[in-house]
């Protein structure tokens, strides 16, 4: 598979991804000046960061073209990380 995957993306594609990342960065910076509430700002910041990370992983890191074992090793820790962050919040993430 590596043989065909490597020529699937041209330099132009990479530049497009880069521009997309730039737009999202601009967006997330702009949102921080809008005076939105803390909860909404955090949510949007996470959502935009995840979108950017997805772009980098899928296209810059070629995850889109990788076989299943690699995809499993990319996805599992992300799931586990989210689980960890949420599971500790009832004790750690509350005002004491």
């Amino acid at each position: 598979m590596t043989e065909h995957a490597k020529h699937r993306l041209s330099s132009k594609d990479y530049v497009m991804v880069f521009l997309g990342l730039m737009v999202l960065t601009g967006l997330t910076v702009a949102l921080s000046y809008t005076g939105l509430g803390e909860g909404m700002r955090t949510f949007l910041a996470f959502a935009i960061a995840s979108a950017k990370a997805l772009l980098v992983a899928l296209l810059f890191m070629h995850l889109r073209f990788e076989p299943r074992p690699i995809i499993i090793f990319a996805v599992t820790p992300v799931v586990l990380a989210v689980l960890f962050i949420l599971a500790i919040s009832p004790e750690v993430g509350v005002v004491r």
Partner: protein
Amino acid sequence: MSSTGAHRLLPIGVTGIDNRKLGMWIFLASEVMLFAGLIGSFVNLRAANLVMMTEAAGLLNRPLGALNTFILITSSLTMALAVGAIQRGNRERLRLFLLLTIILALAFMGVKAVEYGQKFSHHYTAHTNLFFSFYFIMTGIHAFHVLVGVIVLSVVLAKANSQKMDALVVENVGLYWHFVDVVWIFLFPLLYLT
């Protein structure tokens, strides 16, 4: 793998994946969990100390943070182009883009150093409060990863003309470098913007 010696045995396994690439992804999986531990601690303790944390976050230099984000994403682009170059067998372009990536990485560290200097001159250090504890620890560990990246990239650049340096080595360094970028993509809004 036209660019490598014809009779070199390639470590392609039963799954058709190169050992080294599989190894890099497995390594990155563990790195994700390292930062999950830090980021998970941060977001939860931030929620528990919201007022103090958001006030302290306001003290960071947003324009410099945004500049660094711009620099690092650009370096990801040059890295991706470097990988593309060696996959097409173009070692001239490979060297050019590797050099650009290294310069951008050093620029990132320079901006970081300026920021640290600003904070220290205002006596904001790791024990000022919990926010700055997290700020210095998380950006510090990230900066360490950038430093390792610079070293590895320099080695690859120095050996860029060697036939032993096949596309996979560059691709693997690229994977690591993009991961460092992804970490910053999360750290930047978490620390500077919320």
